[in-house]
């Protein structure tokens, strides 16, 4: 699994003729991302923004453009098929923004992406961005990011922006920011991204943003312990004030049992050597203390 994105990243936008897909495709292009094609079944032959060719199928689009990455804005009922079409067309990195994909579909898709060695980010995620490479594949507001040497990984979109905003305003730039998504099953987990950051020579420190529900944060903590990580990590867990059994927006953000609580997660990450961010307003400040 590689999260490297740069000039060689050639992106197809699936669902480019939709409102959201079109809007964000333009924002990505503005930021510097190499969007090479769009795909909307039945709209093949159209042009998007007078510059981007739209194809009927991913097979055709990848064949003609040599794309290696896809960015998906297809509505939830059709998004699983869009992901699969991407995978089977030979795309190696799939970023799925779509929210609301049934969990049972994701179980199957996860297995297939995994079997075929495809990097799937999301669904229900903001995507990823590398400010130094001027490459953004997702929906984050590009102007708050600044090139630098801190990796950011989060289950949440706006909370990523909050963290990045704090970092940038404190003069701390980012090497790569990845939103893994708020669903119970996502293609790329905290562990995958941490693994990348820890091996990445452009990353000196990490901001880790978790939330209530599931055990992904604990698994990340176990992983960090297992590799004896030494890169500094500031970890924020949100949702300490949420009651049990209620879903806080994200499909994955619902506490069922002790392990889903914020305290359990903070405890595990602290044990794994992370510096815990006590107040969501102090992400940058906490990181500064340890780098």
């Amino acid at each position: 699994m590689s999260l490297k994105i740069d000039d060689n990243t050639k992106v197809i936008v699936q669902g480019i003729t939709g409102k959201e897909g079109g809007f964000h495709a333009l924002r990505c292009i503005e930021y510097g991302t190499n969007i090479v094609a769009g795909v909307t079944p039945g709209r093949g032959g159209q042009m998007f923004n007078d510059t981007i060719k739209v194809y009927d199928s991913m097979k055709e689009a990848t064949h003609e453009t040599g794309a290696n990455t896809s960015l998906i804005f297809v509505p939830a009922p059709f998004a699983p098929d869009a992901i699969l079409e991407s995978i089977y067309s030979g795309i190696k990195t799939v970023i799925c923004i779509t929210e609301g994909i049934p969990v049972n579909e994701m179980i199957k898709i996860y297995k297939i992406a995994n079997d075929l060695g495809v990097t799937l980010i999301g669904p229900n995620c903001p995507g990823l961005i590398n400010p130094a490479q001027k490459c953004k594949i997702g929906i984050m507001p590009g102007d708050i990011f600044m090139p630098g040497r801190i990796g950011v990984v989060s289950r949440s979109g706006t909370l990523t922006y909050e963290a990045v905003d704090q970092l940038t305003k404190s003069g701390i730039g980012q090497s790569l920011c990845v939103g893994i998504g708020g669903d119970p099953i996502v293609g790329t987990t905290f562990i995958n991204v941490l693994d990348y950051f820890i091996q990445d020579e452009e990353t000196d420190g990490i901001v880790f943003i978790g939330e209530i529900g599931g055990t992904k944060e604990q698994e990340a903590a176990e992983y960090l312990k297992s590799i004896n990580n030494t890169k500094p990590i500031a970890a924020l867990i949100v949702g300490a004030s949420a009651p049990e059994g209620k879903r806080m927006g994200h499909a994955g953000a619902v506490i069922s049992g002790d392990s889903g609580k914020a305290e359990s997660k903070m405890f595990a990450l602290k044990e794994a050597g992370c510096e815990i961010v006590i107040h969501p307003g102090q992400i940058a400040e906490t990181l500064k203390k340890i780098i």
Partner: protein
Amino acid sequence: MKIHEYQSKKLLNEFGVPVPKSTIATDKETLLENFRDFQSKAVLKVQVHAGGRGKAGGVKLVDNSQDAVEFADKFFGNLFQTFQTGDESVVVNKILVEEASIIVSEMYLALLVDGSNQSINIIASPEGGTDIEEVASKNPEKIFSLPVNTILGPTDFHVREILDFLNLDKTLFSQLNKIIRGLYKLYIDKDCSLIEINPLILNDNNEIIALDAKITFDEDALFRNKDISELRDLSQENEVEIKTAELGIKYVQLKGSVGCIVNGAGLAMATMDVIQSAGLSPANFLDIGGGADEDKVSKAMSAVLSDGNVKIVLVNLFGGILRCDVAARGFILALKDSDGTPPKLIIRMQGTNSEEGKRILSNTKYNISFAENLDQISQILSSEE
């Protein structure tokens, strides 16, 4: 999405999982009629979307009509509260009248998705009829968790393993096999997010039966399960939550005094945590969601204002697609429409057109504090405490 026990049992029955004989009553007369059909001995169970009914007196073995009448009078049409519903109460519209079972042993069986192994898991325990979380923390060795292979579904040897773990006799293999395969098929076919049978019992006839059943469904999959959507009982849900959900606003009613309006679920949780760390309590979770226009923003504000407990409204917007000036106009619209005293407003807006948004809001008569970041929100909240 939650459904009632009686609905869950009907589904179980459809998928070949044995449940006790029962009928559902919506008034005293039918309840009594049903009760007599069971030779005047039956278990009466209030049907509400809440656990812990037993401890709260909502489940009772009754063996004479007088007690049945008493039970009906006590619950029908009244509010019911368990330790799980907390301070909130839910109305009792239906009571299940169920054949009494003679229990030889009580077990636990559940299916749910485990994000850590990215698959559906079968959870089983020989300790049923009790709080499974307690079993898990006190006797973790009494919990068996089995990831189901996505290609295969449950297999015979897995069923034999579970049979063994539940201390059931080998001769019960085919009964348990049918139950586990039925539950798995139900889980897949209807896009469940949880099926919990607690207790699963062995009765005096050597039959394995689901004595209670809790099923919840993946709301993201309701679009392809119309039959399940129809099982939804709005009388058990919060009215404001229902209304906002229709608009695509994610709102969860809580009990504090600080209402909040945020874009993004993660930032919304962070905002609630900021409120709590300032010594106050959030009145709600609210993620305004994508595609917010003036009307949607206004409706979100109205929802928060409709909560009588709200003294302060905290707006925390990190604008991207959402333009802050549009949001500001939406807020003013809702504040004008509101009847009561306008609350204190704390506004943090960042991103697209945020200066214009703040200008629009500062040109009003409302009591507004502006914050630049989360720390400043904290400070303002702390001074309000």
